[in-house]
């Protein structure tokens, strides 16, 4: 025990995390991708959502073609004349937005519901968990499909649909770990010290329930992105005019057999990189945060 350097749990986590090179690379890629997505306006030469900037005559140009507007289509263009390089960044933004927002909403709902179930126990718990069971026993893709058929297209609707299929995972996870943590003596100690309930829940229980949640959440972000891509592929995802990566692939899907490989390939690769990076990070977090494997 070195007295000099103060070791916070976060720092310990970071140190453990950094021990896996692959995971660090994954994280680096992820950060880069996020930055690129956030600053898509800056990184991308073209705003693919601005129809005035598109020219149908520039459609399906192979990578490296010089475009009409004075820049080069490094990754070619799609059938709308969208610069793929730009479209991928904007698509990334949509995909990440969908993935992250859906996850955050689901997380918020799930945590609230799960904590309530764990802390209240009894009939409340029973009712909530039945609901979760029902939700979980029904495949996400079906629910999302039906929901989206119902809600119509739109980024916001996809987010709602994904959040609606994901919240139950968090609720179950939170409840599970909250039940375990609740039995631990430190919670008893807090109760013994007559600390208020909300304080025990938020300050003592919740932070200790977070590790499994973080793992689930990272994996679920990846899942959400992939699911959104699939839904878009099936024709019920985001609108064509604001393509996510999934939508780009889906529209590129039509070009797979034709010579215009780049339309499907590059967005596919981008999606793959993002999901793999997230999964790598999630996997590493799982290892690091799992107390049973930590020694």
């Amino acid at each position, binding site marked *: 025990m070195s007295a000099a350097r103060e070791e916070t749990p976060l720092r310990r986590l970071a140190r453990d995390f950094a021990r896996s090179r692959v995971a660090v690379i994954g994280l680096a890629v992820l950060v880069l991708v996020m930055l690129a997505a956030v600053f898509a306006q800056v990184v991308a030469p073209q705003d693919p959502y601005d129809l005035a900037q598109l020219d149908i005559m520039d459609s399906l140009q192979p990578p490296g073609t010089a475009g009409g507007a004075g820049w080069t289509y490094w990754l070619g263009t799609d059938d709308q004349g969208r610069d793929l390089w730009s479209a991928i960044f904007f698509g990334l933004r949509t995909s990440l937005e969908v993935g992250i927002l859906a996850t955050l909403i689901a997380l918020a709902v799930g945590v609230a519901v799960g904590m309530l179930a764990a802390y209240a126990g009894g009939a409340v718990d029973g009712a909530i968990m039945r609901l979760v069971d029902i939700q979980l*026993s029904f495949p996400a893709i079906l629910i999302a*499909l*039906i929901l989206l*058929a119902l809600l119509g297209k739109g980024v916001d609707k996809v987010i709602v649909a994904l959040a609606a299929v994901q919240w139950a995972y968090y609720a179950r996870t939170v409840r599970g770990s909250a039940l375990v943590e609740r039995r631990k003596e430190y919670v008893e100690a807090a109760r013994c010290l007559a600390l208020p309930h909300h304080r025990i829940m938020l300050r003592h229980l919740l932070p200790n329930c977070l590790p499994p949640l973080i793992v689930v959440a990272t994996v679920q972000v990846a899942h959400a992105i992939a699911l959104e*891509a699939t839904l878009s592929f*099936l024709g019920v995802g985001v609108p064509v005019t604001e393509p996510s990566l999934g939508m780009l692939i889906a529209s590129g899907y039509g070009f797979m057999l034709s010579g215009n490989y780049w339309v499907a390939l590059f967005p596919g690769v981008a*999606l*793959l990189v993002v*999901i793999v990076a997230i999964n790598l990070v999630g996997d590493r977090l799982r290892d690091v945060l799992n107390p049973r494997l930590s020694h």
Partner: protein
Amino acid sequence: MIVFILRRLTQSAVVIAAMAVLVFTGIFAIGNPIDVLISPEADEVERAAAIARLGLDQPMHVQFARFVESAVGGDLGTSFVHGVPALGLVLQRFPATLELALAAMLLAVLLGIPLGLWAGLKPDSVAGRVIMTGSILGFSLPTFWVGMMLIMAFAVQLGWLPAGGRGQTASLFGVQWSFLTRDGLAHLILPAINLATFKLSLVIRLARAGTREVALQDYVKFARAKGLSPARVVGVHILKNIMIPVVTVLGLELGSVIAFSVVTESVFAWPGMGKLLIESILQLDRPVVVAYLLLTVLLFVVINLVVDLIYSMLDPRIRLGGGRA
């Protein structure tokens, strides 16, 4: 056990009821099927006649009541599009999907468990790392993309396997199956692999995590201390323990495999329920969608029951403990 089964059944009844209401109202809200179904040249009289024929002139609660009434009698309505009983339509497609799902599951289990065991026993070996990397990839790749790549590679470029469809079928128990004929089997391979990819990764991960955990347990060390061969330690002591989580998850996953076959069936033109569902949703063929979902829910109920039974066979603590699971 009785309690257990009863509880499951009650739950399932609730699920089915809830699902019926949700789906019915949901699909009701999407749009008017007449807009899609009827010939645009039809005049108003014709429209009204068609609406009346389909029973769409009634208010929703009446339609729902009618639906429930006949559903109790086993009739889930007549397909708007195909004009045949919806349930029959779905059931007819069911074997194809079931065959595909089972083939995928089989692949996932038969490959996934040994690979996962290996990766769990030797987490730091090259093979272990390769398996894990592979499983992350398999976890990450969207199904439709993989499917298309498979077609590109094996059907178009190499020409080894057919690109889609179900091929020749043969009859067994009065149902048509592909795997009984050479041609059918050839058609089954790619879609099965496609559908299995994700589950395979999942099984590998589960098996690996389970193995790593179980391998640390005292009883494994005790088994070795008894002088047992590594084969028995791994094949009996570890395997039987990791099968418990694997079976639980797989049971749930069989459901989602059936659901996810929607994607694979679209890509491979596999004439299963999933494809029917997508088409029916797009055509607002309400009775078929409802029939599909209800059948799926029912299927889950059955699968869950079976899984629980297997589960209790594997885990004596549940079988003999008599407690609530």
